[in-house]
């Protein structure tokens, strides 16, 4: 995701003409397909096939055990008109995305800026900040999180020691979602590494020129760093938004799969899971999955559209 190759005019030159003799080209293609075949087989069997199946299932009433029954748009109609929890889950997830994505990106960027300076032990710090993300959305981290933030857990005890009595955060509807947001934000390592790579790409001479013109650190950040980094910000924003909409593990573990307390952590994928695997309404769950796909695709398209206004590629005239 660097900004140069894509926008250099010469990168858009037509490819060299194909060699004469179609037979040779055919053979070349056969070899290409041969090498692609593991991916093609995997995609067909593990991605495209199941997707088509789930699209079909979304128009059926399917309880996992009996054969699916065609019901047309019933699932979609129920979802939008007769299911309060669907809207609640949609709103909970929206809240989660709106809170966790900006926070995570801001943290990632802040730490990347700090780690971009040549200091002693900088490699150690980079590794340390990246470590939580290596653990990923794993169950063990979520379990640790639950232990930290439950009633009489570590956080509760420490705060009580300071005279602040909040009780356990994961056990209270007001705070439970915030603990999940904190969990997401804490795993900022992946966007941080990408930001770091982006920062390395910013030409030094721009800073030198700015310094000669008397620009302070803030001016340098807003005038040079952020604009030069904007394609990377776009990349991270799109990726993290898509990820946040699909967040499941943390909520599932922290609430023992229930989305509680009082449905405050009922993220959309968790509700989808409940409909499919505990209520045996797999058709409905498939329909929910497709609604999520369409919404996330639309939002991603919107972000890309807006990017024309704020993403700056080096080499563009502004």
């Amino acid at each position: 995701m660097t900004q140069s190759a894509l926008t250099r005019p010469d990168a858009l030159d037509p490819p060299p003409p194909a060699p004469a003799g179609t037979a040779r080209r055919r053979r070349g293609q056969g070899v290409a397909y041969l090498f692609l075949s593991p991916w093609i087989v995997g995609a067909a069997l593990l991605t495209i096939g199941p997707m088509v199946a789930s699209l079909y299932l979304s128009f059926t009433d399917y309880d996992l055990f009996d054969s699916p029954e065609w019901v047309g748009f019933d699932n979609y109609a129920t979802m939008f008109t007769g299911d309060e929890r669907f809207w609640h889950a949609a709103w909970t997830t929206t809240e989660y995305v709106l809170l966790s994505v900006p926070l995570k990106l801001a943290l990632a960027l802040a730490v990347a800026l700090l780690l971009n300076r040549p200091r002693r032990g900088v490699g150690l710090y980079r590794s340390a900040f990246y470590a939580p993300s290596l653990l990923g959305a794993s169950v063990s981290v979520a379990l640790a999180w639950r232990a930290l933030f439950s009633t009489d857990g570590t956080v509760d005890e420490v705060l009580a020691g300071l005279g602040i009595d909040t009780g356990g955060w994961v056990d209270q509807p007001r705070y439970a979602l915030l603990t999940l947001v904190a969990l997401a934000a804490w795993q900022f390592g992946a966007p941080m590494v990408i930001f770091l790579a982006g920062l390395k790409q910013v030409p030094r001479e721009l800073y030198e020129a700015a310094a000669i013109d008397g620009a302070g650190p803030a001016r340098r950040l807003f005038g040079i760093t952020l604009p030069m980094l904007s394609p990377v910000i776009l990349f991270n924003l799109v990726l993290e938004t898509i990820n946040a909409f699909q967040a499941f593990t943390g909520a599932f573990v922290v609430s023992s799969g229930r989305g509680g307390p009082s449905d405050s952590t009922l993220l959309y994928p968790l509700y989808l899971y409940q409909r499919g695997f505990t209520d045996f309404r797999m058709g409905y769950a498939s329909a929910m999955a497709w609604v999520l796909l369409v919404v996330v695709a639309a939002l991603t398209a919107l972000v890309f559209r807006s990017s024309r206004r704020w993403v700056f590629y080096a080499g563009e005239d502004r």
Partner: protein
Amino acid sequence: MGRMSRRAAGLLVGLLSASAALAGCGSDSADGPVTLRFVWWGNEDRAKVTREAVEEFRRRNPDIRVETEYSGYDAYFQKLSTQVAGGAGPDLLQLDRATLGEYAGRNVLAALDEYVGKALKVDRISPDLLEGGKVDGKQYAVAGGATTQVLVFDPTHFEAAGARVPTAAGERWTWAEFADAMAKVGAAGTVAGTTDFGWAVDWFEVWLRQHGKRLYTAEGGLGFTAEDLTRYWESIGALRAGRGATPAEVTTKMDGSVQNSGIVTRQAASEIGYDSTVTGYFGAFGTGLKLAPLPSDVAETGMAALPPVSFAVARRSEHKEAAVKLLDFLLNDPAAGKLLGASRGVPPNEEIRAQVCAAAEGGTKAVCDYEEAQKDKIGPAFGAWPTGASAIKRDFQRTYDDVIFGRVGAADAARRVIQDAEKSLGS
């Protein structure tokens, strides 16, 4: 896109068919030794004794191989539904009351009537208990044990607060006396009187029976009204207000498991549960717990002999005879009974129960004594719950969360429970 060379195309087809063959795991052929899959949920102790019993079965039936698998309750049902749907389900499986109707109603289980009295002997199992394994008049499951409702309590808190709990045979108490005792313990200040029990349909079912109602009618409809539930929840609300019951942030974590229970986490001095989990309580809490019956204002206690778990055979099983043979062994063989002990409640077979109880100690002895003392208060089983029961159980708890966190009044919440339940029963 140019056309693929014939060789590459052939190779692709080959790869596709090979992976398709890999994806559809072959089922074992009927000749040679039979392999059974037997799955259950439960803790390590249960797994250990069940495996020992299965080993004993293998020694006597060398031509039957048995693969066992177990996990925690939630994980168990997550795996089970996907495996059954994928055609890789087990032959012999364990279900509870919420899930029996769910699986029987969805055509997953084999009716066992043709085996009953022949390969599957049930003459030593009480008809009441057998009733709990029937759905629409057919025997889809057999109780793997017997249990009844119980109040587990830590007497030290009650003695300190000067509150009395009846434990002797024939003693009873009313809801007012119960509330008074819990409030006294709560007022004494260290822990709440009892774990708030409003979240589980199971205890509401007991209360309903004391009031001449049912949780589910025989036809599989709802047997109570929003007014009933409102009254019930409001009475517990009064208890909670004075620390007679645990606060919301403790209650919301309840899932019926021993490790999360209010009494084991030292948040409450007592807890309503099933006596099949008492051995677990004793193990996790240490000694010193005692058992008392549930309160009631009328002659009907609402307590019943229930199957804590049932065993069922999958309809798609290719070895139903072998699965029934294993089931019969687990239920009726003295050696198996001795090994299994009270790991799934007291044994359902009365002869074996007498043997196990005669040799019992610790938690098992406490359960045997309790069942003996309360014998005349324990009524017949309630019958299986209908399809949709597991969703109703979950929605009930979720709505109660809203009540205890003060987000909605008991009356509105009760109306919502009825609405959701009707939807679940209709699904």
